[in-house]
């Protein structure tokens, strides 16, 4: 008897838990709604990106629903937390696909998207991801679409900047050893070498690293004429502070993060002079983006990063494309979106004119920005490619 009891309890718990699990979301679907779930990193290492992506998406959902929905259907968006765990993300995408999702929003972390896009591809459900790793759109998956361009799109602009604007022959690379940093690092090192520039210091750092003094000391010693910095926000701020402390005076150039408002706030005066190529940025000197950023702050009482914008335009893209095809047809949706350009003048929810190619890769115009007087200022505009 004693041996048997716990097992029965286990079964009861398992069954009770499972019942809760599979009945809740299914009811949401009736004929006047459309299910667009958001599967995101709400906890774990990717929580900041994931929550911003979700919050941005919800702003769009509320606006669209207030204006009558998509083709008269109200959007129902439930949030699912992947815990930044690829295995969980796959389970959750499977779950929302089973529940009849029209289009899936998320995930932001490339490691997760790599896994769960297998599920949407298999089921033929379009997925609007926030991931920027190059391989996402290189797998021939017809149902994956980006909300910002992959890092491989940014690299040519950066290489041009090092070779043509800065005219340097020796660079150092400071990068973070996660899938984001490694993706950028590999592409950049390959491209800059091809352009005849020598990489004199290749410095990997840990995610969450706090002491950047050996990194900066190594770069200083290497005689690099400029540094390519490819790390996440807090690490970027710590790196900038250490660089300032050790009086590293060569240009520091990054992608997206280095001139991010958050980094400027965290690094204070140490951020002054930092340069970055930004695709989609909250500091872009474009009225539509500034309006969105203000709107976000008003609703959530904190600032968003570019992931908030990605979530927002992702949902609007779903609306516009669906209205173009006139029906909730997943296959037609994916077909329509390939090779599509949405002009921001006609489709204001896109904030900036945006195009997708046949792989789901995205392009729009981008900017070179530099921190001047505590603000990121655009120093050059790079057309869409």
């Amino acid at each position, binding site marked *: 008897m004693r041996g048997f009891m716990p097992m029965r309890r286990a079964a009861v718990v398992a069954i009770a838990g499972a019942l809760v699990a599979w009945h809740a979301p299914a009811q949401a679907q009736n004929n006047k709604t459309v299910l667009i779930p958001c599967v995101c990193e709400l906890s774990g290492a990717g929580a900041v990106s994931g929550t911003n992506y979700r919050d941005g998406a919800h702003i769009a959902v509320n606006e669209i629903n207030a204006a009558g929905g998509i083709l008269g259907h109200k959007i129902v968006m439930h949030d699912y937390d992947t815990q930044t765990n690829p295995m969980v993300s796959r389970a959750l995408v499977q779950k929302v696909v089973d529940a009849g999702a029209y289009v899936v929003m998320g995930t932001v972390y490339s490691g997760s998207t790599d896994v769960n896009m297998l599920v949407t591809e298999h089921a033929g459900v379009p997925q609007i991801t926030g991931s920027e790793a190059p391989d996402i759109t290189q797998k021939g998956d017809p149902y994956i679409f980006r909300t910002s361009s992959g890092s491989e799109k940014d690299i040519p602009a950066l290489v041009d900047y090092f070779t043509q604007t800065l005219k340097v022959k020796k660079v150092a690379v400071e990068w973070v050893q996660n899938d984001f940093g490694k993706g950028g690092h590999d592409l950049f090192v390959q491209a800059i070498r091809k352009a005849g520039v020598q990489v004199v210091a290749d410095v990997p*750092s840990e995610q969450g690293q706090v002491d950047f003094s050996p990194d900066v000391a190594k770069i200083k010693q290497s005689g690099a004429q400029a540094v390519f910095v490819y790390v996440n926000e807090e690490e970027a701020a710590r790196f900038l502070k250490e660089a300032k402390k050790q009086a590293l005076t060569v240009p520091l150039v990054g992608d997206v993060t280095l001139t991010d408002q958050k980094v400027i706030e965290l690094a204070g005066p140490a951020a002054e002079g930092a340069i970055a190529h930004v695709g989609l940025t909250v500091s872009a000197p474009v009225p539509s983006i500034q309006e969105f950023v203000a709107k976000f702050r008003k609703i959530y009482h904190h600032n968003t990063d570019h992931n908030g914008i990605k979530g927002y335009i992702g949902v609007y893209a779903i609306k516009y494309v669906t209205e173009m095809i006139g029906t909730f047809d997943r296959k037609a949706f994916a077909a329509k979106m390939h090779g599509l350009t949405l002009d921001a003048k006609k489709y204001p929810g896109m904030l900036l004119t945006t195009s997708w190619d046949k792989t789901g890769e995205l392009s729009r115009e981008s900017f070179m920005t530099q921190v001047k007087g505590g603000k990121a200022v655009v120093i050059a505009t790079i057309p869409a490619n």
Partner: protein
Amino acid sequence: MAQFLQVLLSGLATGSIYALAAVGFSLVWQAAQAVNFAQGEFVMLPAFLVLIGEHWLHWPLWAALLFGFALSILLLGLAFKRLIVQPFGPDGGLPLVIATMALSILLKEAVKTFYGAEAEPFPSLLPNGTFHVGGAVVSVRDVLNLLAALAVVLLLTLFLDRTKTGRQMQAAAQNPGVAEILGVDVARMTLYAFLLNAALAAVASFLITPVYLAKFSNGESLGIVAFIAAIIGGFNRIRGALVGGLLIGVLDNLTATYVTLSYRAALPLVLLIAVILWRPQGLLGDEEARIV
């Protein structure tokens, strides 16, 4: 040479912060046989309490600091002992370890949910300048951090060795049974150890957060480094934790500069395994004290 000096000095500055966390950790370990898996979060939290005072209650910095310090002692000292450690009795064992792991999740999640997931700047309490030593650039802040850590450990050692209360704490930690028959208030002495740990964590928090930035996940690596520092140095010695902390800070930087960057995190781990296997009492510890 300038490079060597540079990373050595930076390593000492970082190591001094590890040392503060490690000292408190070994105090609690000795006093209550409790390995606190939430130690890293104990260093993360006080900075956020200050930020709450500053940004939510709109108090001046000094009041916010005082508020953060007092609340840390209350929450991480008193409440931690009463609500989490005490119910387990004298030998908490594994369930107590699990409870502190759960506490670390709770603290992280609470900060993330109620304050925010993004890193926040933290006001610097120390002057910002830099000066040059033999070609290395040293910030005043780093030097002051190091001095502060040394001073705290020195004062603590003096307190434990030179005052009657300190010696009662030592007796209560080393041999609670004897302390009790001599009339030492063992429960009170144990409480002092918890309060001291909370105070040290708060000091460490205020010193490092201007550099580390305030983030809910700051404790994750710091907690582990504190364990490692305490064990390497010898957990039954206050100055062992100090030496362990400084050693890890310096070795970490030297490895990163001269040996390997991808494996920079491996060195303290290898050192830890080696110390545990060949000298479990730690580099400075003595053998007579019990091994938990």
